[in-house]
């Protein structure tokens, strides 16, 4: 395995790119989730003000 990866470093690159991509996915999903909560909160605050 070690020797194979040393000779085919492209798979090491693939691994690193996939790891970075997973990090970006997690970031995107958490930001999206929090933003949704924030939007709900702000909308409810606005309706309270009007009432």
């Amino acid at each position, binding site marked *: 395995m070690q020797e194979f990866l040393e*000779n*085919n470093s*492209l*798979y090491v*690159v*693939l691994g690193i*790119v*996939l790891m970075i*991509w997973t990090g970006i*996915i997690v970031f*995107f*999903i958490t*930001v*999206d989730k929090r*933003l*949704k909560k*924030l*939007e709900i909160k*702000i909308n409810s605050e606005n309706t309270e003000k009007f009432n």
Partner: protein
Amino acid sequence: MKAIILLSGIVLGLVLGLFPSILKPKPLIWKIITIILVTLTIMLSFLPPIGADVETASFILEAKPNHQLNLKGKITSLTNNQDGKSIIITDNFGKTAEISLIKGTNDVNFKLGDFVVMAVSKGKSPDNFNFLRTVSINPLLSLPYVPKLEEQIRILNFHVPMAWISVLAYLLAMIYSIRYLKSKDFNNDVLAASAAAIGTLFAILATTTGMIWAKFNWGSFWNWDPRETSIFILLLIYGAYFALRSAIDNPELKARLSSVYSIIAFITVPFLVFILPRLVDSLHPGSANDDTAGPILSTKEGTLNIFQQITFSLGFASFTAIFFWMFNIWSRIVLIFHKKSI
């Protein structure tokens, strides 16, 4: 055929981006599809080994005797003569080549009928090569060897979609600017600014990936090639857009002026990205002195095989979807801020 594959990727990306709406939160299934698309693009760009056919390999190694490259073919016979062990492979075009196994590599187990991709160096004659190491045995897919580009062809799937997305984002900025001028709704102005910002981000990404590619293919990071100059001018034009926005305090004047500027700025985009670099001689594929029109638009067979075209088009689809996701998140944040400040 090439155009259909490419267009279907772009259309898939746009459909994903516009569904269910640009600004509404994206449903979970949408996110899953986008993540799968990008992961697939990355996997298909990096996993398949690149292997040359016999004719290309002997041609390249005649020109560069100290070079080593990947050769692919099916093992048709295993021989054992006084010079040592050797194998005969037949490539996709039916051409055969002899690969001599140097001592020390004799423990490699080749089986008759295996499709192998292996690193080789120049041998005794044009159709004789010295075995260096096995890259892959019976890979599901393998890519053709493109002379001069070699492994760098994989950058294509990332570099070109970046440039396309910057054009798309600037187009979106122009559409929102026109909407602002029609409706005088400040939300449209804010959205135009976010689209232009993401567009500039992707233009910078296209420039930097292109610079790194240029270093290893043309010899220097920056040499004022027409393509490099045009993207530089484009970055300056949109840099001035943000300078204009930050220079005016009156929100109404700021929105009106920057909307007009953004509409005028977009008129230069097709010229700087699609037309100007094709009119003059350049190192970049698709220039005036490039008789193949570049690997993407070329109608010649063999410049990009069907599998590479599909991966390339998938790259367009997935990065367009990612752009719309980024734009969705960013514009929602910016709109919340904007509502608070009014």
